[in-house]
């Protein structure tokens, strides 16, 4: 398998605070890779740095062999990387369909129409609510919309930041099942989660972050049974 995303020696600062400390990791094409760790471990910061919203002081970020260390955030999607930000960040004041149109902003009109149909087939709930203002959707529907929006351009890599946040357990199950299916249909996934158990169950590999550093990495199945991971993140 080819390496799709390669992060080498990432160091990110918020002013004097050293938030990400020399992080390196790879994502192979076709994988689900998860970054787990407590709140404040630097997981979201890593995604934002890959997106170009923050800059790493050192090292490099490569996607499909091309250096994207200094990419402008708005060029990311054109490279084939979609980022579903923390808190979903759907456009609350736009309709459901307009949100999807924004997801396909860089595509041709005919492709947008087909991609919207595709999302509606996967999430019939969204089709029922297509003319509704997105801010009136439930949390689960908003997460579906955020994922649907990220799928509009058929990106090769989707980075998801805490898709389980604020959702009822049954919805979390559904969203993770969906992420798994999305991956099975050929999309590589980089998943940031506090819900380590759920994330590791669908992931191929995982990295454990603690205060900005990777402290453990390995196959998801091994991390699930690892004693220290169990203790720290899986509730014993």
């Amino acid at each position, binding site marked *: 398998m080819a390496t799709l995303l390669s992060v080498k020696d990432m160091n990110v600062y918020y002013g004097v605070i050293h938030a990400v400390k020399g992080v390196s990791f790879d994502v192979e094409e076709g994988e689900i890779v998860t970054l787990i760790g407590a709140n404040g471990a630097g997981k979201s910061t890593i995604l934002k740095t890959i*997106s170009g*919203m923050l800059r790493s002081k050192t090292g490099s970020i490569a996607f499909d062999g091309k250096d994207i260390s200094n990419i*402008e*955030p*708005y*060029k*990311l*999607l*054109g490279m084939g990387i*979609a*980022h579903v*930000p923390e808190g979903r*960040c759907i*456009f*609350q*004041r*736009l309709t459901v369909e*307009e949100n999807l*149109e*924004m*997801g396909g*902003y*860089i595509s041709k009109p005919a492709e947008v129409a087909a991609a919207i149909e595709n999302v509606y087939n996967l999430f019939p709930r969204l089709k029922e609510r297509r003319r509704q203002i997105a801010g009136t959707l439930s949390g689960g529907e908003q997460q579906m919309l955020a994922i649907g*929006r990220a799928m509009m*351009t058929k990106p090769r890599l989707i980075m998801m930041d805490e898709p389980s946040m604020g959702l009822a357990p049954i919805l979390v199950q559904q969203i993770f099942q969906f992420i798994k299916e999305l991956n099975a249909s050929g999309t590589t996934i980089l998943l940031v989660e506090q819900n380590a158990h759920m994330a590791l169950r669908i992931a191929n590999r995982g990295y454990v972050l603690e205060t900005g550093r990777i402290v453990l990495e390995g196959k998801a199945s091994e991390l699930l049974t690892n004693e220290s991971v169990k203790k720290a993140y899986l509730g014993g």
Partner: protein
Amino acid sequence: MTFLYQILNGIQIGAIYALVALGYSMVYGIVKLINFAHGDIIMLGSYAVWYFMTRLNMPWWLATIATIIFCSIVGIIIEKLAYKPLRNSARISLLITAIGVSLFLQNTVQLIFTANPKMFVTFIPSGGFSIGNRSISYTTLITIAISAAIMVALTLLVSKTKIGKAMRAVSEDNRTAQLMGINVDNTISFTFALGSGLAAVAAVLYVCSYSQIAPTMGSMLGLKAFVAAVLGGIGSIPGAMLGGLLIGVAESLTKGYISSQLADAVLFGILIIVLLVKPTGFFGRGDREKV
């Protein structure tokens, strides 16, 4: 009859306020800046159309188009040079910069054209329709018709087109808009160009009615349009339209039935009442600050 006549006059000047208020509101929506230099774009537009017609002998329609283009470009340049470098600074810095830009524009024009007012000779034929013993001038009708057409076009642009939707997305959440592949800088430039272009149209319509052009003419006009934008709910496009019309009518009725001298006092009284009673205006959203 007099009452209807006053209302019509109010709608005429109100339509001009509305065009200017739209610029305030759209710019506020997208960069959260009260662009106090916006009124001076009207002043620039007035000088531009006067210059193009009297000095370059352009026909009125060409002069109007050239004025719109000129003001749009100036709007983009102001944003790039003065506001963009401050995009991540405190809002008060932006506000003070906007006031600085306003003074800069006024003084630059004064330096070039002196402080003496210029007279603009309208290109709209005089006369009009008579209804009863009153006549409604062509200027009034044309001002209202053009403003109405522009507002319809703008509403369609913002609600239906790709760039309009991008403007709304950026104004709601510019970081996420970037992740959609929307070039936020270009969208902001477009918004400034659009707002300044509307101010240019307002300028041409204004000088056709009021003929006098001076370096400080934009201050009061801009301030009234700002009151209109706040009344309608700053950031809201229909709000700016409604606010502009209401302010125009309020001004006209005050002049007609109370006293000309009190007209400005009434307008700013409205501003104070709106800020006290409903700071979000008619259609404004009470958004909390996003961190």
